[in-house]
């Protein structure tokens, strides 16, 4: 019979922010907290005028997004990252048949915000319809 543990929060005993879980190969362990995506968002940058609450389809640990120019947005992080060395990745897309590649570039970041810029064909800055960003690293 499988067992199931029902609990609302998990903390480490030795260190509250560190819990090890056994890997799929049944041998090595990996750190649960470090493996979790600390913030993510999907939003539509073409909303005009840009309103964060309307543009965001879904998100986690993201307070709001501002419009800082063509294709340029600042993502505000609700619970700050521990340092600016965190790893962010993303993708951009468009729900039309106009052709051309869309991409997303990462600009200046702080522990509380990540600045991004959308492009079309890797050259022209553009507000893209589908913008997705993931942030991995340590929380403050």
């Amino acid at each position, binding site marked *: 019979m499988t067992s199931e543990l029902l609990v609302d929060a998990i903390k480490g005993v030795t260190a509250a922010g560190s819990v090890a879980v*056994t890997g799929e190969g049944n041998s090595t362990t990996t750190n649960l907290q470090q493996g979790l995506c600390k913030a993510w968002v999907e939003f539509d940058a073409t909303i005009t005028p840009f309103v964060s609450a309307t543009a965001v389809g879904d998100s986690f640990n993201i307070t709001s997004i501002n419009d800082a120019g063509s294709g340029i947005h600042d993502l505000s992080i609700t619970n700050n990252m521990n340092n600016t060395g965190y790893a962010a990745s993303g993708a951009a897309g468009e729900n039309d048949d106009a052709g051309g590649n869309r991409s997303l570039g990462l600009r200046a970041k702080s522990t509380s915000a990540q600045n991004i810029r959308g492009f079309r064909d890797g050259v022209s800055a553009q507000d893209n319809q589908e913008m997705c960003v993931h942030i991995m690293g340590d929380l403050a």
Partner: protein
Amino acid sequence: MSSVLNVDTIADKAGTGPVGLTKQSANKGFLNFDGSASTPSATDSFNHSSIVDGGTGIFACGFTNNMANANFGHTAGGDHSAAGINTNKFDARSADTFNCRAYNYAGNPSDNGYIALAFQGDLA
């Protein structure tokens, strides 16, 4: 009333296998690094051992604990500046190493200043 479980390690009932996270899965590794450094090394990382610079825009990133196979998923990000935007291409990979190539938006291999990678899949 909310409940809190205080524990250092979580394994399955047998004590040797992984437990399932309801409707979610954790990343098994991530890193970001400055590809323009003379000896690139991770600014921050998880389950990452080293970076081998294989030439302009070419980097081999090793895992501390290997993946179960070479079919793991990944995502990547790069900075952009007045010089251009990164795009990352991925060469042959193995369970212990992920190889990536960075480009500028002119399509040329480039040692870009910010490269971020994250990995999803099963550990060995």
